[in-house]
């Protein structure tokens, strides 16, 4: 979850490309960023690559970074989100190609945690998925999510409500497949995720 040890002083040191500061920021943010990316991609290997990519971008852009600790945190999440969107587009263009990265040893168990819920998440449009993962898996407030996604608080509430409703339906369909109210869901669906409008 979010950590208040990410201070403005640390951000100043990041601007000076201080190695220790980078290590500290990595320790503070990497797990949350990974949780976000895994929620977006359902692929731990690709998620780890997205996190690494965002830190490399931070290292390159460090001297020009502006704002305070909260701005830096938002910047990192936006960066991971962009990487995830690129990966999702890549998969849409080449659905038959396997993901280039392989899961790391010891990481498979995480991927198998609550597979029904992860499948249901993957059926959500990308924007709704981002919002739900940031809100409930990472633990951001609505205002912070609005800042990361680049929308209004109202937009976050709206997407979050829709997503929760859809998740509930999908999970009910999996848990009670004969229920007439349930919507059929194919967990292995190759249907490309839909990117919502702004």
């Amino acid at each position, binding site marked *: 979850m979010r950590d208040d040890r990410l201070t403005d002083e640390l951000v100043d040191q990041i601007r000076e490309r201080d190695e220790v500061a980078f290590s500290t920021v990595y320790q503070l943010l990497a797990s949350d960023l990974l949780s976000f990316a895994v929620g977006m991609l359902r692929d731990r290997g690709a998620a780890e690559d997205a996190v690494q990519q965002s830190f490399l971008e931070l290292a390159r852009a460090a001297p020009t970074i502006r704002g305070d600790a909260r701005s830096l945190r938002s910047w990192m999440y936006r960066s991971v989100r962009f990487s995830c969107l690129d990966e999702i587009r890549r998969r849409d263009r080449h659905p038959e190609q396997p993901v280039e990265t392989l899961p790391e040893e010891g990481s498979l168990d995480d991927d198998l945690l609550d597979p029904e819920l*992860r499948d249901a998440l993957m059926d959500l449009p990308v924007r709704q998925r981002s919002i739900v993962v940031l809100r409930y898996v990472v633990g951001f407030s609505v205002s912070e999510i609005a800042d990361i996604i680049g929308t*209004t608080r109202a937009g976050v509430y709206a997407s979050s409500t829709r997503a929760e409703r859809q998740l509930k339906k999908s999970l009910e369909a999996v848990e009670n497949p004969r229920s007439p109210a349930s919507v059929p869901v194919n967990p292995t669906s190759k249907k490309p995720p839909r990117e919502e409008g702004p």
Partner: protein
Amino acid sequence: MRDHLKKRLTGLHTDMNPEISERHMAEITREIKSPSAVTPARHRAPSIRRMGLAIAAATILLVPVAAFAADDAMPGEFLYPIKRTTERVHSLFDSDVQARHRVEEVEVLLDREADPEFIMERVRVAEQHLGDDEAALVKRFAVARERAEIRVQTEASETADPERTQDSRDEEPSQGSGEGSSTTEPSAEQEQEQQQSGTGTGSSSSGQSDDPPRTGNNS
């Protein structure tokens, strides 16, 4: 169910493998020591410019259609700012229009079982628009506010004792679940007010490096 879903989602949180952390830090350290630093703003500028032009063109072409389509828009939806703009024009002829729309929005959000916290935000917005002379509207608003307060209390009791609530739901399987229509949401202006009053980060206004660079191609 809602509370149960949140708990399951929270359980998806995962930690970075120490070996991967070590490998990442080695790469990051190498990048820090590298003399070349890319300015991400250059990377993003052309796409932002193109997007701005496209949005401007679309706005000019679609304004009449959008104004018509925005009549039923709800806060947080794409067309809602257009509805607010047309409303301001209408209010020159019909002074109640804004208050009426705000109260209607609260009623719709209640029907859609939107987030209680958000509904209360909209109740407060509606209250600001109400005048003393709009008696019928004040009455409708009072009813809507009462429903909203009941929703908040129900949500709070579910959070406090989810198992009990779940049990009571299990006993009443025929209870309606709403018809699955879309959402909820506060106005853009209220958003801005809240962000300006301190909850916002201002990161979006802080210049070229506030957005991370987009990687890969966008085609």
